[in-house]
């Protein structure tokens, strides 16, 4: 029972006053940002990153993780009360959460959300604790070919399961890969695609792309969608406690959602949104209560919340054990660790056990904090949401500009962010998902480096990717996912168009936040 010993060691780390305090700051800030529509955990992490430089690495990572899953929690509050997804992944929660609110069961929906998120988080935590050591051991054997194939699998998964269909997803991943080649070629030192602009020599910064596509792009889209402003409905959120039947109905979905979420969270390239969407679809198929879905079914709230929260925990598995970030947020986590001189990879468990197990244990502590925090604070979050958009959106834009400017103290970066914002809005208009683009952008440089290295070592023989068993296996799985994705896209385009999900502000998939 080595895991239990390790876990209690991690718990000892987390229960120190300083770690507890920053864990609390993380989950609180995450919830706050999550409640606000338009910006997700990505923006929140970008804002607290400079603060983390001054903390012990374990404390820093516990805080960043808290922001990450706290935002998932907060996102669901706006979804349920106002039908506005605070984060892309909580858009699924709108489907049944908002109808519940209109039926006067908002308190119950929020309560179920808290319980489901907690349950999903704990399932994700257990999966991480159990799987990581084995994966790290396996990864010690990984060479460039294996790393390339893992990343390839992630990119295929990100594009194949995106909402717009596999072809659009692949197009977006390719656009992300192309964007990532801008700047100095790391193996030769040549300048690539800088168009003679000195600011582009270092490439485009991840925060600029992410803030532009998601932050600014989402804001422009919301302004258009919400010109009238949401009705300030009189929702009774004082009745919290679910009925016995509702308790029973949510138990199964929490389990299934947690496991589905764990899988998609751990797969690089997919994330909370895919997890929530797949979880919902599966639940709709297995539930005895099918016709209630979309009209305020308690299962429809429990599943996506459990799935997206467990996915936020398991997203740390590839990030820490392989050094392969599954999303833009995870890339920032790697950046934060690198600042502290810790290189994520298979050795992190043996070289920095206190960090790894401290993080795992912090999931338990942080989720309990969220549970305790959220129930009494719901009233405050609701008031926050009633701030008129004409005041809130300019404030968010200012925050984004400050965050981007502080990267390099360069105004050029702000213009770039606005440019990406417009691009993000156009992509939404034409139903192209920005999430696969971002994941291609994040994984592109790593993929290129490993590809070139693998080919150098094999003296140019591309068969090396198929001949090495792990690499070949990963590529075979990629081929299956790709085939499935194309098949469903094809089938959908032939079948008559059916009514899709019922909310228009949220077309994002993937590991955006």
């Amino acid at each position, binding site marked *: 029972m080595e895991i239990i010993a390790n876990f209690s060691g991690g718990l000892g780390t987390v229960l120190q006053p300083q770690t507890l305090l920053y864990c609390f700051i993380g989950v609180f800030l995450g919830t706050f940002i999550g409640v606000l529509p338009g910006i997700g955990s990505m923006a929140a992490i970008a804002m607290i990153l400079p603060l983390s430089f001054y903390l012990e690495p374990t404390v820093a990572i516990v805080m960043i993780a808290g922001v990450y899953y706290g935002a998932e929690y907060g996102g669901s509050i706006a979804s349920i009360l106002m039908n506005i997804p605070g984060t892309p992944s909580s858009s699924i929660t709108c489907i049944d959460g908002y109808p519940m609110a209109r039926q006067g069961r908002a308190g119950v929906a929020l309560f179920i959300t808290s319980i489901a998120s907690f349950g999903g988080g704990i399932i994700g935590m257990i999966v991480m604790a159990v799987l990581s050591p084995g994966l790290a051991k396996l990864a*010690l054997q990984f*060479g460039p070919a294996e790393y390339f194939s893992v990343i390839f699998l992630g990119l295929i998964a990100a594009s194949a399961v995106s909402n717009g269909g596999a072809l659009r997803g692949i197009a977006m991943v390719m656009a992300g890969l192309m964007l990532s080649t801008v700047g100095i070629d790391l193996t030769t*030192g040549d300048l690539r695609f800088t168009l003679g602009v000195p600011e582009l020599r*270092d490439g485009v910064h991840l925060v600029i792309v992410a803030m532009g596509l998601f932050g600014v792009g989402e804001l422009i889209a919301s302004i258009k969608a919400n010109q009238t402003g949401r009705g300030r409905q009189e929702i009774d959120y004082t009745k919290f406690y679910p009925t016995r039947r509702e308790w029973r109905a949510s138990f199964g979905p929490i389990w299934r959602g947690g496991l589905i979420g764990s899988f998609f969270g751990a797969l690089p390239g997919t994330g909370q949104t895919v997890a929530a969407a797949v979880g919902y679809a599966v639940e709709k198929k297995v539930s005895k209560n099918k016709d209630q879905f979309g009209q305020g079914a308690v299962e429809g709230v429990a599943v996506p919340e459990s799935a997206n929260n467990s996915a936020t925990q398991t997203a740390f598995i590839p990030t820490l054990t392989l050094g392969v970030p599954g999303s833009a947020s995870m890339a920032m986590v790697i950046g934060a660790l*690198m*600042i502290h001189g810790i*290189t994520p990879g*298979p050795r992190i468990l043996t070289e920095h056990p206190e960090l790894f197990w401290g993080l795992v244990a912090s999931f338990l502590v942080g989720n309990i904090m969220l549970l305790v925090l959220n129930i009494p604070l719901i009233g405050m979050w609701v008031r926050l949401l009633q701030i008129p958009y004409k005041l809130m959106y300019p404030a968010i834009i200012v925050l984004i500009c400050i965050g981007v400017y502080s990267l390099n103290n360069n105004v050029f970066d702000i213009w770039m962010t606005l440019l990406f914002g417009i691009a993000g809005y156009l992509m939404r208009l034409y139903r192209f998902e920005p999430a696969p683009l971002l994941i291609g952008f994040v994984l592109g440089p790593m993929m290129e480096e490993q590809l070139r290295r693998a080919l150098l*070592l094999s*003296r140019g023989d591309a068969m090396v990717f198929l001949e090495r068993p792990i690499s070949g296996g990963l590529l075979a799985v990629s081929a299956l996912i790709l085939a499935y994705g194309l098949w469903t896209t094809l089938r959908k385009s032939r079948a008559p168009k059916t009514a899709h999900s019922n909310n228009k502000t949220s077309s994002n998939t993937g590991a955006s936040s």
Partner: protein
Amino acid sequence: MTLSLTRRALMALTSAAVFALPAGQALAEPGAWSDEPVRIVVTFPPGGTSDLVARLLAKHLDESFGQKAVVDNRPGAAGTVAADFVADQDADGTTLMIANNAPFTIAPTQFEELPYAPMNDFTHVAYIGASAPGLFVKPDSGITTVSEFVEAAKANSISYGSSGVGSISHILGEAVDASLHVETLHIPYQGSAPAIQDFRAGVLDTFYDMVAQNSDMIEDGEAVAIAIAASARFPGMPDVPTFKEQGFDIVIENWVGLTGPAGIDPEIAAKIHETTLAVLALPEVATTLNDLGITHQPLSTEAFTGFVGTQIDVWKPLITAAGVKGK
């Protein structure tokens, strides 16, 4: 005020770096020079010598002198990404970098076009010390001497990992190839940490890296250092022979220093210099530097600047001979 004017006049007189006397610096007391945290840019990802030195400095600048400092890794293109970045920053002493061979003595020869001028775009403030790289092989390869390595490399194709194109480990690898008349396969990485990870995973046959940093691997029996490219054996690891004593005249030493953008006020530069030397003199720091294989020598700012200037010419033939030039 009068004091600083006099000092500036003195600096102007002795600017040719002839004076090794710490003329201006005698007036500076070690201590914090900025209210803002100082950014120490590192040319490689975390884990290498430059990175460890930067973190050591940052820690003790804060602990002993109350000067907050943050380490900022900006790897890529053999250190030129970091140097280019630093050259463009404000010369107020809040951005410094760990200067080393990569951007200052190798890149000027390696690249036809450099986005910065190694001397004119920088203030070379303080010399820290030098260490030497060596050749590492797998224990089960049976290779224990340079001669055996030559035999093995002639019999089979051998790959080696380096910290990047134009890095000191790459130059050493090419210098070894040229002087031993063998041909090995170069695989560049971004820094030594990922190269060592691949060496451990069995992807690479050999790698070149700073010897002292890898003492753990040697002790654990994970790697054998068959030669160090220093002029004499490193006192901390007397068991590792030099290339020289095995009959191959290969000496490549890696120096590190503290450098900022051009035009740092001489008064601030003197303060940084004195504070850095004071940090290096701390017993704890001296021990760590020794663990890193770095031999420290106190040089004045002028002497350090002169040293960087001559290094380009010292390395030029080495780099050209290694065939790294181009691109």
